[in-house]
């Protein structure tokens, strides 16, 4: 049987990049990313006893990351910004942009999108983060603890809101 330290090391080496990516969604400042990353690792360590394998390990990791980010936002909520990048592979999930070759238009929209995303509430930001990670509605529902239809409604609402705002005449 693996000891706590071995289990922890394995988790960090397998899922470290994923955790770092989540941290980078929330912070542009590398120091703050590092603080959040460390806090997530601490919470993973402290929650290891509760992992019984009845949830997928990635769901378990995402839960800890999202829950930590919510606590983290509690501390510096006003400073928090959701950062999306052009190289975020699942950005089309958010923009419903099927034409991935249309990079120029995407780049142009990105700045505006960045501004609009930061107007979202902390919960909406968490949902978007998970969507950008390429998770299914079912997986997001498992992580957040609400029903799948509720997740669909919320994400649909966010997308509609973003679409309206991203239209050239969309701003109120």
């Amino acid at each position, binding site marked *: 049987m693996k000891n706590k330290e071995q289990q922890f090391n394995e988790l960090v080496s397998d899922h470290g990049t994923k955790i770092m990516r989540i941290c980078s969604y929330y912070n542009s400042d590398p120091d703050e990313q590092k603080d959040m990353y460390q806090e997530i690792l601490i919470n993973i360590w402290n*929650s290891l006893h509760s992992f019984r394998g009845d949830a997928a390990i990635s769901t378990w990791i995402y839960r800890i990351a999202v829950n930590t980010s919510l606590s983290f936002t509690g501390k510096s909520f006003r400073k928090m910004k959701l950062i999306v990048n052009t190289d975020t592979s699942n950005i089309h999930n958010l923009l419903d942009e099927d034409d991935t070759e249309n990079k120029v238009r995407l780049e142009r929209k990105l700045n505006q999108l960045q501004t609009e995303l930061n107007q979202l509430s902390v919960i909406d930001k968490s949902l978007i983060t998970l969507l950008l990670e390429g998770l299914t509605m079912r997986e997001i529902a498992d*992580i957040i603890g609400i029903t799948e239809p509720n997740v669909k409604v919320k994400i649909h609402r966010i997308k509609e809101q973003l679409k309206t705002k991203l239209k050239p005449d969309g701003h109120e």
Partner: protein
Amino acid sequence: MNNKSNKPQIHLNELISKLRSEDEKSIKSTNRFKIFYFVFGAVYALVFIFHFVFDEDNSWTDSLSGFFYVLAWITFALLFRKANKEYRQIDYSLPTILMLRKAAQRYKLFQPKLTIAIGAVLLINIASSLNKVEIPMTHEAISDIIQFQIIFVIAITASFIIGVLVWRKRQKPIRDNALALIDELEN
């Protein structure tokens, strides 16, 4: 900005050794509290039994007072242990809404724990008042009890007000934030 190029540099071994030492410290401190409360409780109980059995001058009011002190002590010990365990075992791997509900519950002002604590405080009050009882009752004893009750009520009221103020400053904002997030998730 490339996500991967911003990889935070964490010294994992250093972090693990810190976490492990925190775990050890936490276990040691829990054990110390457990030993302190239960050994002290047991010693007090033994002293009480000794007086009850062997002390001929020991009146029934003294015995009852001792019994209430022991009961209050044990209640506080158990409450403290439960609270300590609760605060240490915050599970971040729960579904978000469940974690938020637990946080909202944990930072509630009026909860069953408070009722039990009030019960234990009342036991101390009764025990201390019984200590002052004289049979037959004298004016001096009655006056002592009334004086004690006035001081007790002032002290408890002041402690309660301080407790509420501390709660409003520290715990209430966390609870309000958790409740707002729950509300947002559910609607």
